[in-house]
């Protein structure tokens, strides 16, 4: 069962953070359906290491709202098949399509995804 903090963060905390720091992205589901949502984007995060100690080429980490219209639900995510159109660099004119490769966490209404 989610804690009171989790519930509060999900209903009011993260939506406020998203309003302040979020950027528009387009989430592309494997079947071709798209959804325009906001995401907090961490560009050039430190490399994540796999079980063998090899660095994975994680290029972006995004935080999105676990929501059926304002974000994406956990059970809608299809790692390896879904992609996100995102500005890879802040001043880019065009978006870059990146593959959702990993779900890093899913807590308090916030889903953290690694994109390559």
């Amino acid at each position, binding site marked *: 069962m989610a804690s009171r903090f989790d519930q509060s963060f999900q209903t009011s905390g993260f939506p406020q953070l998203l309003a302040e720091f979020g950027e528009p992205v387009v989430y592309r589901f*494997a079947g071709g359906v798209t959804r325009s949502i906001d995401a907090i984007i961490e560009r050039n995060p430190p490399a994540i290491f*796999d*079980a063998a100690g090899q660095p*994975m*080429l994680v*290029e972006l980490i995004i935080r999105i709202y676990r929501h059926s219209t304002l974000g994406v639900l956990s059970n809608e995510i*299809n*790692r*390896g*098949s879904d*992609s996100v159109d995102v500005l890879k660099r802040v001043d880019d004119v065009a978006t870059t*399509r*990146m*593959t959702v*490769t*990993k779900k890093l966490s899913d807590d308090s209404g916030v889903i953290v995804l*690694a994109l*390559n």
Partner: protein
Amino acid sequence: MATAISEQIAAKLQTRLQGITVAGGYEVTVSEVVRGTRFGGWRPQHLQLVINQGTMTRNEELSHPGNPPATAYDLPFEIYGLLMPSESATDKIDTLRNQFSSDVIKAISTPQASWHNWDTLAILSTISDVEDVTQEESSGFKLTLTVTFRVTENNPYQGRS
């Protein structure tokens, strides 16, 4: 602009791999064959091939004297096959890996009679192990191909028999 023999071989390898299609008689259709940029420049996809070139080493045994002499090199290519089927897919991942890696070997070694010399650019080619590459976010394989070719000692743009 001249194209180095090593680059010509790499380009031919990419072209052969791009021919992997069901319509062309293979079991799968490759989604993309990638040679990376400095920062990668590609995004992972199901049934994708990524070509990484390894260290080119001098092969003394197959070099020969002359004026100018001919120098032989062993050029390894690591070919990564990525498998990222849908999370709900029921296909056996080993079956996919077997099909995809077999198609890669078939594509590299076509045409059968002369695949190893890359249209006379090289003198020998060797396909090594198909290694399992399984990570949290993807599965797949790594296949190593070593191409041995000879060039004029002072001109790597000029192939030698």
